[in-house]
């Protein structure tokens, strides 16, 4: 596969939903340690709603798929993750316009727009111990790649490293920041769900 199609985007979202459902408890546990324990439940509920929305209509192109997911997340997730993932998919989907096939450079640029949306919304910088710490390296790897498949695999790996690198950090954004130094030695739940976003992209689009 050298481009992302509508069906590819749908498959990506299905995989993302099942990753979240499968790792729901893990995300709850991570969020219980440094937050309020709802990250897994909320994203799982949101992506179920998103799949319902996707199943309930026809999406013409990858951009519409992502914007549909965005709206479902915004109106069903709540918390920090709702607006952040909602904004991410909205910006990314908008960047894709109504293209029916998306090649690597355009796909990477859309991820970049999504990342910018997250940072605009949440004001987090690299190192603040948030989902941004998985997004930045993941998007960077995609931009640096020369083919979609390799780019997706590199991005997954980079996001995983970014996720793991959140562990020693002191949180400066979100609920974990209330803990100050005590937020150290815990992996960030949002960075973890973002890793699953890259993982599911690689598994569904790098076939």
């Amino acid at each position, binding site marked *: 596969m050298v481009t992302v199609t509508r069906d590819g985007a749908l498959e990506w979202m299905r995989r993302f939903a099942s990753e979240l459902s499968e790792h729901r408890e893990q995300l*709850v*546990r991570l969020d*219980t340690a440094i*937050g*309020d*324990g*709802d990250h897994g*439940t*909320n994203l799982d*509920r949101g992506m179920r709603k998103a799949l319902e929305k996707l199943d309930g209509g026809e999406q013409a192109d990858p951009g519409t798929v992502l914007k549909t997911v965005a709206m479902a997340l*915004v*109106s*069903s*997730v*709540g*918390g*920090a*993750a*709702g*607006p*952040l993932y*909602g904004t991410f998919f909205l910006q990314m989907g908008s960047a894709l316009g109504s293209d029916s096939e998306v090649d690597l450079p355009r796909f990477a640029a859309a991820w970049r727009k999504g990342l910018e949306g997250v940072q605009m*919304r*949440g004001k987090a910088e690299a190192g603040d111990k948030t989902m941004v710490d998985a997004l930045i390296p993941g998007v960077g790897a995609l931009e640096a790649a020369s083919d979609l498949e390799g780019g997706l695999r590199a991005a997954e790996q980079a996001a995983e490293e970014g996720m793991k690198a959140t562990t020693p950090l002191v*949180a*400066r*954004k*979100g*609920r974990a*920041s*209330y*803990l*100050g130094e*005590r937020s150290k030695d815990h992996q960030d739940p949002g960075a973890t769900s973002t890793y699953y976003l890259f993982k599911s992209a690689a598994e569904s689009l790098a076939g």
Partner: protein
Amino acid sequence: MKKLINAPDAVVQDALHGVEAAHGDRVRVSYDPAYVVRRDAPVQGKVGLISGGGSGHEPMHGGYVGVGMLDAACPGEVFTSPTPDQMIEATKAVNGGAGVVHVVKNYTGDVMNFEMAADLGKGEGIEVETVLTNDDVAVEDSLYTAGRRGVGVTVLVEKICGGAAEDGRSLNEVAELGRRVNAAGRSMGMALTPCITPGSGEPSFELAEDEVEIGIGIHGEPGRFREKIGPASQIAERLMTPILDDLPFSSGDRVLAFVNGMGGTPLIELYVLYNEVAKIAQQRGLSIERNLIGNFITSLEMQGCSITLLRLDDEMVRYWDAPVNTPGLRW
């Protein structure tokens, strides 16, 4: 996890049905999107006052909908801020032409969801002002973090702004008053036990049989530090000192003292604690002119308490004393 519920993901909806069944004479309930609204909303010419936040803090916010307090409340899932569509619909439902105030507790999720809603609300020609509460002195206030949490003062903002809105004050006046209340209020909480959200089924943290957590948030977020439990006098000191030093409160200040239960603490203990709070206030030369004691902003079945002090001015006292008729607060 043992709870009086039907299913973890039905808690909020089922409770809303209960609210409608119980208080249908005073409020209406919308289920999708979910919000509780005054029966007579929108009140023409009155500033609308809405709030919202995760469920599990009852009676806040749904219990504060009624004459003299909120026009509407948007409940999120347990401990999860609500979504923009709830806020947008609630805003429309309470807009009587004089604009709408959003009372928002300073949590990343709440702030972002309300921001999205406010953007969209403006788009529909409704003027929206936001009052952000961030009174929790347990959290360090810094530009480089998410800042302080909004806790106990939120209840006071809702009551006082509700009184002002009912009195016909303008959008800016109500919002300014709310900001003044927030600026003059400080809180801190502690827990004896954790709570369990229906969604996770697990305690939010673990505490030893003789430990307490000082500086806890209302979502079971861990606090500032842990220590062996001491007498109520010591616990009052632990909470009062940071509060008093922060504003700072000074001798001669008139204050409202709010001793709040986290949900699982018996009222008799809150009165024991209030007695210690009153002693400390007296030592510091504060005059407690109003008080509130009970479970008003809770954290499910958590055992523990929070203390909020508000430095009063005449306008605050006037609107605090103004009649209120809600399921959760009434006089």
